[in-house]
C-alpha cells in the first residue's frame, strides 16, 4: 500500500476516548478541590469499588451498542437477579456459589434470548429488550409476589461489600474492584480480538460483514450474551453492596447507555471503544459523588446531571467533527 505523502490524521477521531478522559479529569479536579481526601487511596478504592457495577454494565452495553443494537433489559435483569439470588440463597451460606453460577447462567440465557429474538426474528432490539424488560420485572414481582423474600448470605454479599483490608499503600482493595479489573481486562482483550473487530464491522455495515463470511446473527447474539453476563456480574456486586430490593437495577439501562455514549461510542454501531464506555460510566459515578460533595440539593440533582451530560456529549461530538 502506498502511503501517499504525509497526510496527518485527524487529531480527535469520532469514537476516540480523548474527550471523555478530559471530562473525567475536570470532574476529578473539581472533586479534589472540594474534598481533597477523596483522592486518598482508601476513599478512592471504595469509590471505584462501588462504581464497579455500572462500569461493568457499560462494558456489556458497549458490545451490544457497537454491534448496532440496544440493550434496555439490563436494569430489570439486575433487579431480577438480585431478587432471585435472595430467594434461592435464603440466607444459607452454603448455597452462595451454586447461586452465583446460576446467576451467570441466567444472565447469559437472557442475553441469548434477546440476541436470538433480535437477529433471528428480526425484532428491533429496542423492542426486544424493552419487552424483555417488562417480562423480567413482571415475572420477578409475580414470582416473589410483590416483595423480595429470603435474604442474601454474608458470603454472597462479601463480593460487593467487603475488601482486602489494610493493603500497604492502597489501604483497602474492594473485591468488587478486582472483579472489575479482571472483567475490564477481558473486555479490552475481546475488543482487540477478531471477534471484537468483526463486531464493529457488523455494526458498521451488516451487509458487507455477511458477504465477507461473518455470521452477523451470531456475532450480535454473542454481544447480547456478553451484556447479559455483565449484568449478572453487576447484579452480584450490587446485591452484595446494598442488599435485596426491587430498586436494585432501576434505571441502570439508561445509565449504561448514557455512559457508553459519553464514552464516544456511536449509537447505531460501528464506532467506539470499550475503554471509552467504561470511562463514561466512571464519569457518571464521579458526577454523582461530585454533587454529593458539593451538596447539590436532592431534587436539583437530576437537573445538574442532565445539564452536564448534555454539555459533555455536545463538547465531545463537536471536537470529533470531520468536515
Amino acid at each position, binding site marked *: 500500500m502506498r502511503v501517499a505523502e504525509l497526510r496527518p490524521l485527524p487529531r480527535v477521531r469520532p469514537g476516540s476516548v480523548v474527550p471523555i478522559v478530559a471530562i473525567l479529569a475536570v470532574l476529578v479536579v473539581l472533586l479534589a478541590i472540594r474534598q481533597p481526601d477523596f483522592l486518598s487511596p482508601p476513599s478512592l478504592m471504595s469509590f471505584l469499588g462501588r462504581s464497579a457495577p455500572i462500569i461493568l454494565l457499560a462494558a456489556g452495553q458497549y458490545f451490544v451498542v457497537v454491534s448496532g443494537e440496544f440493550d434496555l433489559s439490563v436494569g430489570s435483569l439486575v433487579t431480577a437477579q438480585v431478587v432471585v439470588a435472595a430467594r434461592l440463597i435464603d440466607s444459607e451460606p452454603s448455597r452462595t456459589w451454586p447461586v452465583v453460577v446460576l446467576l451467570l447462567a441466567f444472565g447469559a440465557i437472557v442475553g441469548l434470548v434477546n440476541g436470538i429474538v433480535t437477529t433471528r426474528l428480526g425484532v428491533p432490539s429496542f423492542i426486544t429488550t424493552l419487552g424483555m424488560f417488562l417480562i423480567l420485572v413482571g415475572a420477578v414481582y409475580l414470582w416473589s409476589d410483590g416483595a423480595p423474600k*429470603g435474604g442474601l448470605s454474608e458470603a454472597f454479599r462479601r463480593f460487593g461489600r467487603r475488601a482486602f483490608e489494610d493493603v500497604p499503600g492502597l489501604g483497602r482493595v474492594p473485591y468488587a474492584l478486582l472483579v472489575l479489573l479482571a472483567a475490564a481486562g477481558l473486555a479490552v482483550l475481546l475488543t482487540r480480538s477478531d471477534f471484537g473487530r468483526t463486531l464493529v464491522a457488523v455494526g458498521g455495515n451488516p451487509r458487507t460483514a455477511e458477504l465477507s463470511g461473518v455470521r452477523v446473527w451470531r456475532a450480535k447474539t454473542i454481544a447480547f450474551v456478553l451484556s447479559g453476563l455483565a449484568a449478572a456480574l453487576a447484579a452480584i456486586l450490587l446485591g452484595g453492596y*446494598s442488599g435485596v430490593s426491587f430498586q436494585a437495577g432501576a434505571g441502570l439501562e439508561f445509565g449504561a447507555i448514557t455512559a457508553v455514549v459519553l464514552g464516544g461510542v456511536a449509537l447505531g454501531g460501528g464506532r467506539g471503544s470499550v475503554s471509552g464506555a467504561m470511562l463514561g460510566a466512571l464519569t457518571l459515578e464521579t458526577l454523582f459523588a461530585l454533587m454529593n*460533595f458539593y451538596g447539590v*440539593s436532592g431534587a436539583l440533582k437530576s437537573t445538574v446531571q442532565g445539564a452536564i451530560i448534555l454539555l459533555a456529549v455536545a463538547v465531545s461530538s463537536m471536537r470529533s467533527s470531520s468536515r
Partner: protein
Amino acid sequence: TDEPTATPSSTASQAAGSGTGEQSKFFVQADYDNELALLDATPTGPAGKPWEQVLNPKMVETAKFKKSGPYKVCFSNAGLNNPWRQVGFKTMQAEVATHRSQIKEFVHVDAEGKDQKQIADINDLLGKGCHALIVSPNTTATLTPAVEAACQKGLPVIVFDRGVDTTCPVTFINPIGGYGFGHVAAEFVSQKMKPGGKVLALRILPGVDVLETRWSAAKVAFDKAGVDVVGVEFTDGDPAKTKKIVGDYIQRYGTIDGVWMDAGAVAVAAVEAFLDAGKPVPPINGEDQLDFLKLWKEKKLTAIAPTYPTYQWRTPIIAALKVLGGEQVSSPWKLPQPTITEDNLDGYVDADMPPLHYAMCGCTDLPGYPQRWK
C-alpha cells in the same frame, strides 16, 4: 393532606437557616396540631384489635346504604408497586376471606400507580353493580373528581390510606398519619443525638403527599430543636444510591450524628453505610419492616420505628360491611398508629417472616397466616 376538606395554609413555621428549606405547601397547621394531639389520645374499640379501634370517633348515620347481603364489594387500588401495599393487600384479602358469608364477590382493580388509569378504573367499576366501593387513591387532588362521580352514583364509597378533597365518601380511614410519623421520628433523633449535631434527612421521592406531610412535620421538629440538617436527599428507595449518598456525607462531614427518613425502605442500607465506613450508627429511624427491626435488635441500634400500619387495609372491609348493614361508622375513622421502640421491639421481630414484611400488619390472627404473607 390526609384530612379531607383541609385547605393549605401558609402558617408554616419559618425554617430559620437550619437547612430544612422552606415549609412544604402540604403543611397544614390545623391538621398538624390535631394529629399530634391524636398521638396521645386513647382509642375506643376492642382491645388488641387496633384495626377496629377509633381515635375520637365522630359517628355518622349509614342507614340509607342498608342492603341485604351477600354483597359485591369493589376496590380501586392505587397500586401494588411496593412491599407496603403488597402486605396491606394480602391482609385485606385475608380479611375478605373471613367474611365469605357476607361478601359474595370482591372485585379488585389495580391502577399501577397511574392517576388517569385509576380514574378510568373507578368509572369502569361504576358499571359493575358494586354494593360498595373502596378506594385507595393514588393521589389526593387528582382522584377527587372521580370519587365525587362515584358518590353521585349513590353507592357507599370508602376511602383509605390517602384521602380525597371531598367529604362525599361515607368515611375516610387511615391511621393518625404523616405528621405523626415525621414528628415522632424527628423528635427521637433530635433528642437522642448529641446537641448541635448534624442530621441527614433521607427521602424516597418528592411529590407523594403522605411522605411530604411526614417531612413537613419533621421540619417543624428539627427547626424547633435547632438541629443542623446538613442534607435532604432523595434516594428513590434505592439502597445502592442510599449507601453512596450516606457514604459521601460521612466523608464530607467526618461524621453524621443523626439520620431521619420519611420511609423505612432504605433504613437498612443507611445503617450499613455507617457500618461499612466503620462509624458508629447514629440515632436513626426506620419503619416496621422486619429487615430493619432485625438489624436494630442485632446491632443494638439507637433507633425508633414510627409506623403507618398495614392493618389499616383490614378496616375498609369491616367498615364496608358495617355501612351495608346500616351500622354507624366514624367519619373520619382514625386508627391508632403505634410506634416501635427499644421496649416493645422484641414483640415485633419475627425471625421467620420475609425481610420486607411489615410487622404492624395485624394479620397474625387472619386465615392463612403466615404462608399468605411469605
